[in-house]
C-alpha cells in the first residue's frame, strides 16, 4: 500500500476564486479517499450477493423508485411529503464563486471544524493562480470564504499546502459539540505543582516531529492478509455466467435431452 492516494482524474467542481478584484478560474479536485476494506454481504448458504430492496412497512411489498417520495417527520409517524421537484426548486444555486473576504492564521481555526479538503488547480490561465499561491505562501495566512457544493453551502478555508492551493470545507458551529457541555469538566481539580511539572517534563521529552506515514490501519492490513490466504484456499467466487455461453450450453442441453428421451 502506498502512502499517498492517486491523483484524481476529474474535477468535481469548477468556478472561480476571487479576492477583491482578482478573479482566478479554478477547478476543484477531491483530496480525501476513504480506503478502508469493504465487504459485500452474501447469502451464507450459496455465496450469492444480497441486494437491498425498499419495502413498504404497511404491506411488506417492494416499492419501485418512481413511487418513492421524501418525507419530513414532524411528529412520531407523521410526515410532510415532498416531491423531488419541490425540493429541487429550493436547492441553493451554486454561484460558482468562492469569495475570500478575510485572512486568518490557518490554525486559529481549530481542526475540529475541518470537514474535507480539496485541491484547487488553475482552470485555463495559470498566471493568476501562481500569483495568489505566492501571496498565500508569503503571508502564511489562510483565506476565509464560502462555497456551495451540490446542495450544501459550506464555510471554507483556502491555504497553501505543498505548492498548491487547498480548500477545506468547514463544519458549522452548531454541528460541533462544545466539550464544556460535559458535567465531568466542572469537577476537575487544580493539579499539584509537582505533578504538573512531572507531566510537563514527560510531554517535553516525548515531543517530536509528526510523520503521518508511520501510521497504518492494522485491521485493514490483517484483513488483506486474510484475503490473500483465502485466495489460495477456498474462495467464494460468484460470477454471472456469460449469457452467450449459457445459451450455447442450453442448445447442447436440449439436443441431449431429446436424445435421452428417445432411449
Amino acid at each position, binding site marked *: 500500500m502506498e502512502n499517498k492516494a492517486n491523483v484524481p482524474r476529474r474535477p468535481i467542481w469548477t468556478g472561480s476564486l476571487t479576492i477583491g478584484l482578482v478573479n482566478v478560474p479554478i477547478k476543484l479536485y477531491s483530496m480525501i479517499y476513504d480506503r478502508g476494506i469493504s465487504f459485500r454481504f452474501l447469502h451464507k448458504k450459496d455465496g450469492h450477493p444480497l441486494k437491498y430492496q425498499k419495502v413498504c412497512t404497511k404491506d411488506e411489498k417492494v416499492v419501485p423508485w418512481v413511487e418513492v417520495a421524501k418525507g419530513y417527520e414532524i411528529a412520531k409517524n407523521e410526515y410532510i411529503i415532498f416531491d423531488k421537484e419541490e425540493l429541487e426548486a429550493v436547492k441553493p444555486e451554486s454561484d460558482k464563486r468562492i469569495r475570500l473576504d478575510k485572512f486568518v492564521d490557518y490554525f486559529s481555526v481549530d481542526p475540529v471544524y475541518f470537514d474535507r479538503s480539496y485541491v484547487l488547480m488553475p482552470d485555463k490561465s495559470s498566471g493568476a493562480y501562481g500569483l495568489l499561491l505566492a501571496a498565500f505562501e508569503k503571508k502564511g495566512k489562510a483565506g476565509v470564504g464560502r462555497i456551495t457544493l451540490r446542495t450544501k453551502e459550506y464555510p471554507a478555508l483556502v491555504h497553501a499546502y505543498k505548492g498548491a492551493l487547498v480548500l477545506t470545507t468547514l463544519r458549522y458551529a452548531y454541528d460541533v459539540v462544545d466539550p464544556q457541555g460535559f458535567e465531568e469538566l466542572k469537577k476537575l481539580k487544580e493539579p499539584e505543582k509537582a505533578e504538573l511539572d512531572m507531566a510537563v517534563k514527560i510531554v517535553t521529552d516525548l515531543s517530536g516531529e509528526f510523520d503521518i506515514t508511520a501510521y497504518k490501519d492494522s485491521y485493514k492490513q490483517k484483513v488483506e492478509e486474510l484475503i490473500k490466504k483465502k485466495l489460495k484456499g477456498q474462495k467464494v467466487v460468484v460470477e454471472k*455466467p456469460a449469457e452467450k455461453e*449459457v445459451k450455447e450450453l442450453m442448445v*447442447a*442441453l436440449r439436443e441431449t*435431452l431429446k436424445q435421452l428421451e428417445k432411449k
Partner: protein
Amino acid sequence: MSKKITKVEFTNLDKLLFPQLKITKAQLIEYYIKIAPKMLGFLANRPLVLTRFPDGIDKEGFYEKDAPQGTPTWVKTVKIYSETAKRDVNYVLCNDLDTLIWLANLAAIEIHMPLSKAGSREKPDFAFFDVDPESPATFEDAITVALLLKEKLDKLGLESYVKTSGKKGFHVLVPIAQKYIFRETRTFVHQIGRELAKEQPFVVSEFKETKKPGKIFVDYLQNSQGRTMVSPYGVRAVPEATVSTPLEWTEVKKGIKPTELNIFSVVKREKDPWKKILENKQRLKV
C-alpha cells in the same frame, strides 16, 4: 430464462481449464452434455472418484471421493466405509444428466469409476486389462499388445472391448456376469497377462517389472474392490484435453493418434462401439 431445463447453476463458465488450447469450463460442460447419451449408462450406480481442477490443469488439482460441501440435495450419494480413512466416505453417484453437468461445473475434469456397482461392490461386471507402455515403448507398441490380447480373448470365446486410456495406453475390458468376485477376475486377468508375457518378450505381467523401460505392462491389479479406471468417454487432465475413447477393434491400428481423440473430435464420432457392452454378460472360466 431457460434455466428450468437443468437444476445446475453454472459458475465461472469462462474459467480456462486447458490453458494451452484455451478451453474454458463452458466447453468442458458442453462436451459432457453432448457425450452424456453415450456415457451415462457406464456411470450409473458406481461410486465415483473425481479429479477436480478448479483453476485449470496447470494448477494443482485434487482427488475427491467425498461429495464436496454444498452438494445439492438432488445429487445422489452413497456412504461407504473406508478402511484406510476409518470413516464413511460419501461418494457421488452420477445417474442422470444433471449430475454429470454438475460434476463438469465443479471442474471435475476426470471422472473415475470402479469396476463394480454400489449395491454389489465385491462383484465386478468387467474384467479389466490395463495396457500401459513404459517409455521408450510407444503407443504403437501398445496397439500391438492390445491386438494380441484381443486375439487371446477371442480364442477363449470372450468378446472384448477397447478404449484409449486418454494417455499413452489402452484399456481392454471383458464385460461379465456379476457372479465372480474380484479375486477371481484378478486371477483371470493375471493369467492372461502371464501367458502374453511368456509369448512376447516386451510384455510384462508382474507389478515389480512395471517400470522396466521399453516394456508394456498388462496390469491386472486394478481388478480390486475400490480401484477405479477413467470412465469411458471421461476427459483426461492433459494439455490436449483427450478423452478415454471407446473404439471399434478395427480402429486399433497404426496411424491412430490418442491425442487426436479429444473433447471436440469425440463428440463428432458417430460410432458407439460400446453400445452393447453392458448387455454382454459373459462367463469366465476360472
